[in-house]
C-alpha cells in the first residue's frame, strides 16, 4: 500500500516506536493522527513532523478507556480523513520493576488488558467498519515475543499481548479476501524507555533503534507483504 496521503492513526505516538512510526509514515507522505495520554509530548512530535514538511495532528486520549475510543477516531477522521491504517502501538508493562504473577495486583492485570488488548480491539472494531465500506484498510497490532515466550515476571504483559495476537489471528481469518488486513508485528527488543523500565540492566548497544524498526514496518506496509503472511499473525520486524 502506498501510504502517501493515506490517513494513519498511531497510538502511543509520543515516544519510542510510536514516535518513530509517526516520523517514518509522515516522511513517506502519510497524514498521521497521533494519540497518547500526554498532549504536550505529542505536540513535540507534531512539531518535528511539521518541520520535516509532513502533516500530523495530536489527539490526547487513553486507549484503555472505552469512552475515549470514538472521540479518538472522530477527531482523527475529521483531521486526517477516513482512517486507512490503524497502528495499535500503545501498551503498558504494568507496574515496574516487573514482578511475578504471585505478586501481581488484580487491578494491574485489568489495566494491562484494558490498554494492550481491549484498547486495540475496540479501536479496530470501530475503525474496520469504515474500512469495509471503503474496500480497503490495514490494522497493525504491535506485539512482542513475550506473547509466545514465558518470561518470568512478564506475566500480565505476556498474557495481554498473547490475547492481542490471538485477536489478530481470528480477525485475519474472518476478514480473509475482504481487502482488509489485520496483522501483528513483533518489533524485537528496542532501545526505548519502556525497555529500560523493564530491563534497566540491558546494554542499549545491543538493542534495535526504533527508527530502524519503524522503517522496516513502513517497508512491510508499502510492500504489501502482509497480504500473503497475514495468517502467520506474528511477523518479526
Amino acid at each position, binding site marked *: 500500500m502506498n501510504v502517501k496521503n493515506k490517513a494513519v492513526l498511531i497510538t502511543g505516538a509520543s515516544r519510542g516506536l510510536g514516535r518513530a512510526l509517526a516520523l517514518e509514515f509522515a516522511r513517506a507522505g502519510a497524514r498521521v493522527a497521533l494519540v497518547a495520554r500526554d498532549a504536550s509530548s505529542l505536540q513535540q512530535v507534531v512539531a518535528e513532523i511539521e518541520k520535516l514538511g509532513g502533516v500530523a495532528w495530536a*489527539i490526547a486520549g487513553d486507549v484503555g478507556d472505552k469512552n475515549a475510543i*470514538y472521540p479518538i477516531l*472522530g477527531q482523527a477522521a*475529521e483531521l486526517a480523513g*477516513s482512517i486507512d491504517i490503524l497502528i495499535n502501538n500503545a501498551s503498558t508493562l504494568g507496574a515496574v520493576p516487573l514482578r511475578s504473577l504471585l505478586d501481581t495486583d488484580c487491578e494491574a492485570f485489568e489495566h494491562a488488558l484494558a490498554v494492550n488488548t481491549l484498547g486495540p480491539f475496540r479501536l479496530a472494531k470501530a475503525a474496520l467498519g469504515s474500512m469495509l*465500506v471503503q474496500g480497503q484498510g490495514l490494522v497493525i497490532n504491535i506485539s512482542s515475543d513475550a506473547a509466545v515466550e514465558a518470561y518470568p515476571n512478564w506475566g500480565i504483559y505476556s498474557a495481554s499481548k498473547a490475547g492481542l495476537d490471538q485477536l489478530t489471528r481470528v480477525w485475519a481469518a474472518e476478514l480473509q479476501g*475482504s481487502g482488509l488486513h489485520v496483522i501483528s508485528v513483533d518489533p524485537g527488543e528496542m532501545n526505548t524507555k519502556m525497555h529500560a523500565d523493564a530491563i534497566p540492566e540491558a546494554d542499549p548497544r545491543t538493542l534495535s533503534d526504533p527508527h530502524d524498526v519503524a522503517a522496516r514496518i513502513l517497508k512491510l506496509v508499502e510492500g504489501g507483504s502482509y497480504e500473503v503472511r497475514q495468517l502467520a499473525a506474528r511477523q518479526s520486524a
Partner: protein
Amino acid sequence: MKSASWPRDNPLEERLLVIDARQQTYVDSRIKDLSHLLNANDLLVVNDAATLPASLQAGEVELRLLAREQDGAWRAVLFGAGDWRTATEERQAPPKFVVGERLVIAGAAGATAGFYAQVERVAAQSPRLVTVRFNLEGAPLWSALYKYGQMIQYAYLKCQLDSWSTQTSYSSRPWAVEMPSAGRPLSSGLLLALRRKGVALAAVTHAAGISSTGSPVLDGLLPLRERYDIRQRTIDAIIEARARGGRVLAVGTSVVRALEGCAQNHDGRLVAGVGETELVLGREVPGRLARSPIFDGLLSGMHEPSESHYLLLKSFAPAHMLDHGLRVANELGYLMHEFGDSCLILS
C-alpha cells in the same frame, strides 16, 4: 407506533418490513434477512458520517449544533434550562442573545482562554436559531468539542446514550449532529456477508441534522441546508451497478438527500466533492409519485406521516402503500424512532 426506548442487544434480529411498490407486497422480515433480500450486483450506499457530540452546555443554556458553515462558523439552536429528560417542546425558552455575546462552555466568562462560542447572527425566524463561532479551530476545537460536548439525547429513552450507542458500524468523519440511524442495525458482520455475496458498498458523508427543536416555527424549517461529500468512487459504483443490472439502494434519507441534492446542484449530474443542499424531496410533487432518479430502493427507520422524512419516502412508493405499510407495522408491533425497526422500500 411505540418508540424503542433503548438500543436492543442484537440488531440483526430487529424487524424489517419490506414494501415492494411494484409487486404491491408487504413482507415482515428481520434485518439479518438483508443477506438474501439483496442480490449480487446490487449496490448499498450508506452515510458514513459519525455523530459528533453536538450538545454543549453554557451555564443554563444548551447550545445544540446544527451544521458547520463553510467559513468555520456553526449554526446552532439554543435551549433554556432543563435537560434531555424533558421533551424539547417542554424545555424553557433560553434568554435572548445578541450579536457579539458569548456562550461560555469552559473557563470564566470574559476570559480570553477557555472555550466559548460567540454569536455572529441571530435568525429572523427565531431568536433561538443562531450562528456562532468558537474561539478555537482545527485540532484544539475538535478536542474541546469531544471534551465538553455530549451526544444529543432523546427524552423517550430510558437512559443516557454513550458514544458507542450513537455511531453506525461504519462511522468515519463526525459530521452528523444526530446519528444517521437507518444504518444503525447494519453490523460490520452483515456488511461483510453482503460484500462476500457480491453486493457492492459505497459511502457518502452527509451532515445529518437535528430531528426536533421543540419549536413549531423552527421545526417547520427542517431539514436545514446540510453539507455533503461525495467521492468519485461512489459515483463510479452507482454507474457500475446500473451497468451490471443491479439495484442502487440508499441506507437512509440522508443518502438520498446528499446524492439527489448534488444532482440538483449540477444540472442532473453527480459531481464528486463537497457541497450543500436544501433539497426536500417529495415536497415538490404533493399527491403523486415522483420516482427517485438515482435509487431503486431505500432502507429506512419507521417514520410517521407527520415527519419530514415521510415526504421523502413518497419518492419510493405511493402514499397509500406507505400508509398501509405503517398500519401493518403497527399491528405487528414494530417500534419507531432512532433505535426502532426498519423498512426496505423497493420502488
